[in-house]
């Protein structure tokens, strides 16, 4: 094969301009999501083959209207274009513009032109514009901006080959100079330009304005620019308004010359009519709650079959390995620690995939912006934001992608509160715990003929989690002080049919994020917990078989039941068992004994581990069959009272505990990363555990 050359191409443009569709068209499945160094903004990159000798590394930048950032995502864009020596600085930029709304798309283009960055203008959604009756003169457009222009239809994949050919051609930066910098600060601009070796005035001007956003500046450089700024009385935002007005002035002139026929204002009528329905003061909420209900139902019913399949496959694999691998601690760890650990991660993939399929569809159609619009006022009462709705909904599947989804919230306080309360939303890992306990203590009866009591109890728990989230947010709103203003200046895109391949890419991306983010923590902790649960002071562990044999002479050695009793004995005397017994005095007021204590500890990696631990400790072997566990738990006797161990009081106390408690190590790890420190995850852990303890205590004391 001949040597290939590689060029770096960045896709830029405003949100909803079709950037992601173009990215998917160019790269197909050759894409990966990483992080920009030091920040937690998703970095989507992919490889596009331009011809047999040339590959392009495509970087899909977060959507932004201009170089002046409002959110964390947008800061990255400013930084990528400013750091010419940085690894992400592109050789060429493709600016994706929504042809139905050129004015707004051109703002960033004019800034890129002033930065002297070689740019191709890709006009997307020409078909929609044409339908609206609009037509534009592409030749005049190219000459007015002095940039190459290409028509594309990113959804249908038209114009992509032409764009690739253009990317192969040498590309020079535009010669246009659109924005004239105010004379009084030119001396400062010149000095920054010389000191940092920059190529254009506008670049230096950006450094003066945005030094605080540029992470790549050394302290010395930042200090230099800062002092210069003070000397010349330049402060961030001072000239920004004037700059924007000037740029729009230029853009209007361009539009006057290129638009041969402007859009018929009637074309968007259908979207407005739909808005009347979707944002109706009663109908709008009814539709929204129906959508929520549909998502909810789907998560639980559609996911059930693949989840059962994954569950039994991993259980069989673990069993098979246990029986067929040679003896030894390493193989035991593989069969009993690592394989079930991975199974515990994979099992959530169906629910997460389904949830994100729905969210992607709602976003693709433009409905999500209406949800934000509908819910903003209500959410604000509780210190949240219209944009908190999607992350909170995602929290029903898994807190990890939910927390990642808060990145679109510009205001830090709103975002922090959203992150803080997301783990209260009952995630799919709580469901196995809920299911077994509800089945145990709530009769499978119907009230009024249709409402199943167990179903009502389950719904009540979800509602309780939601209330805890909302009320905690409200408390935080009062406690936290913030100078940063919250705002909601958001585009309402026209309604359209979703593009299914984009939905597919979103599912893949989010699922990957979950598997790798949550997965590594869950796996690591499951291994640690496996060690704690399998090892103990050695003489006790070694005696296990003899002791069980002495206690149960009727059981045959090597019989399953005997092995289960040994496993239970070992767990009791393992380090986890010792810790469980150690915390018994603390959890006794909640109605729990040391056996439940062990399950509380092992389920810290992930809540669903509770079920498996309970199965082991009540010597059921590795079965997770609900009815078996249920029967065993029902027969368990509390030696102090002589009655059943799992009374309704204990059961409800446990349910309440799991509704509120953090009990998820991967969530803590993600919160730590997103809030850049241990402060918030620790506060969250303490707060949620305290809340769980207090309410479980109250529940038990009232009911018993």
């Amino acid at each position: 094969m001949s040597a290939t050359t590689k060029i770096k191409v960045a896709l830029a443009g405003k949100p909803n301009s079709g950037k992601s569709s173009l990215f998917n068209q160019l790269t197909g499945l050759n894409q990966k999501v990483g992080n920009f160094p030091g920040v937690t903004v998703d970095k989507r990159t992919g490889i596009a083959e331009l011809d047999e000798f040339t590959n392009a590394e495509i970087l899909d930048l977060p959507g932004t209207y201009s170089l002046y950032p409002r959110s964390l995502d947008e800061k990255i864009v400013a930084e990528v274009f400013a750091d010419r020596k940085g690894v992400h600085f592109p050789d060429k930029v493709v600016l994706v513009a929504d042809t139905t709304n050129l004015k707004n798309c051109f703002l960033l283009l004019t800034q890129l032109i002033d930065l002297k960055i070689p740019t191709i203008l890709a006009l997307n959604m020409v078909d929609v514009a044409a339908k609206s009756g609009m037509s534009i003169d592409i030749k005049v457009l190219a000459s007015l901006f002095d940039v190459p222009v290409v028509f594309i239809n990113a959804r249908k994949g038209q114009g992509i080959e032409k764009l690739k050919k253009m990317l192969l051609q040498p590309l020079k930066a535009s010669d246009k100079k659109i924005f004239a910098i105010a004379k009084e600060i030119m001396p400062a601009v010149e000095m920054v330009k010389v000191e940092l070796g920059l190529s254009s005035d506008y670049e230096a001007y950006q450094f003066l304005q945005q030094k605080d956003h540029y992470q790549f500046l050394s302290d010395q450089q930042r200090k230099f620019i800062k002092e210069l700024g003070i000397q010349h009385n330049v402060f961030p935002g001072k000239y920004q308004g004037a700059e924007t007005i000037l740029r729009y002035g230029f853009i209007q002139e361009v539009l006057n010359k290129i638009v041969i026929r402007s859009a018929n204002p009637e074309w968007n009528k259908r979207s407005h009519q739909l808005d009347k329905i979707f944002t109706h003061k009663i109908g709008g909420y009814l539709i929204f709650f129906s959508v929520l209900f549909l998502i909810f139902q789907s998560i639980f019913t559609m996911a059930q079959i693949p989840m059962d399949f994954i569950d039994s496959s991993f259980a069989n694999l673990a069993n098979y390995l246990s029986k067929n691998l040679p003896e030894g601690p390493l193989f035991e760890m593989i069969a009993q620690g690592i394989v079930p650990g991975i199974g515990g991660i994979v099992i959530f993939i169906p629910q997460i995939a389904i949830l994100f399929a729905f969210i992607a569809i709602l976003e693709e159609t433009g409905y999500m912006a209406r949800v934000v619009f509908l819910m903003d006022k209500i959410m604000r009462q509780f210190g949240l934001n219209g944009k908190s709705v999607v992350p909170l909904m995602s929290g029903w599947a898994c807190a990890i992608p939910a927390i990642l989804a808060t990145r679109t919230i510009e205001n830090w306080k709103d975002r922090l509160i959203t992150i803080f309360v997301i783990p209260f939303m009952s995630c799919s890992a709580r469901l196995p715990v809920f299911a077994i306990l509800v089945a145990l203590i709530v009769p499978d009866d119907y009230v009024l003929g249709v409402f199943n009591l167990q179903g009502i109890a389950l719904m009540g728990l979800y509602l309780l989690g939601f209330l805890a989230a909302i009320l905690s947010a409200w408390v935080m709103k009062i406690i936290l002080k913030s100078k940063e203003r919250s705002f909601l200046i958001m585009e309402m895109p026209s309604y359209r049919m979703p593009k299914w391949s984009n939905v597919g890419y979103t599912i893949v991306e989010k699922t990957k994020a979950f598997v790798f983010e949550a997965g590594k923590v869950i796996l690591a902790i499951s291994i640690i917990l496996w060690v704690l649960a399998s090892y103990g002071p050695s003489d006790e562990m070694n005696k296990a078989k003899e002791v069980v044999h002495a206690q149960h002479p009727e059981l045959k050695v090597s019989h399953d039941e005997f092995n289960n009793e040994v496993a239970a004995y070992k767990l009791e005397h393992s380090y986890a068992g010792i810790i469980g017994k150690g915390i018994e005095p603390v959890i006794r007021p909640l109605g729990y004994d040391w056996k439940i204590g062990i399950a509380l500890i092992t389920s810290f990696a992930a809540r669903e581990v509770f079920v498996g631990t309970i199965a082991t400790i009540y010597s059921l072997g590795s079965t997770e069959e609900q009815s078996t566990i249920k029967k065993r738990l029902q027969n368990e006797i509390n030696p102090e009272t002589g009655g059943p161990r799992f009374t309704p009081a204990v059961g409800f106390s446990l349910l309440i505990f799991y509704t509120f408690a953090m009990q998820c190590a991967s969530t803590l790890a993600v919160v730590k990363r997103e809030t850049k420190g241990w402060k918030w995850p620790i506060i969250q852990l303490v707060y949620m555990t305290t809340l769980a303890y207090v309410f479980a205590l109250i529940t038990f004391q009232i009911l018993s």
Partner: protein
Amino acid sequence: MVANNKTVADMIPGETAIIVGFSDEEIAVKLLEMGFLPGTAVRFNFTAPFGDPVCVSVSGYDLSLRKDEACVISILN
């Protein structure tokens, strides 16, 4: 700053007006970027169920704004 104190927040659904200025610099820079330029027309489309936020059209597309933001934009009509 503007003699007429009417703002976008005072408009009724279906009403159209011309933007004349802003009374808050911090939000103004953001609004300008989104196409709220002095001299351009703004159309008030509808409000959310509790009267806030509001949906307006400006520079050829639809946007949602909170009342707090809408009342920063002075208009003439």
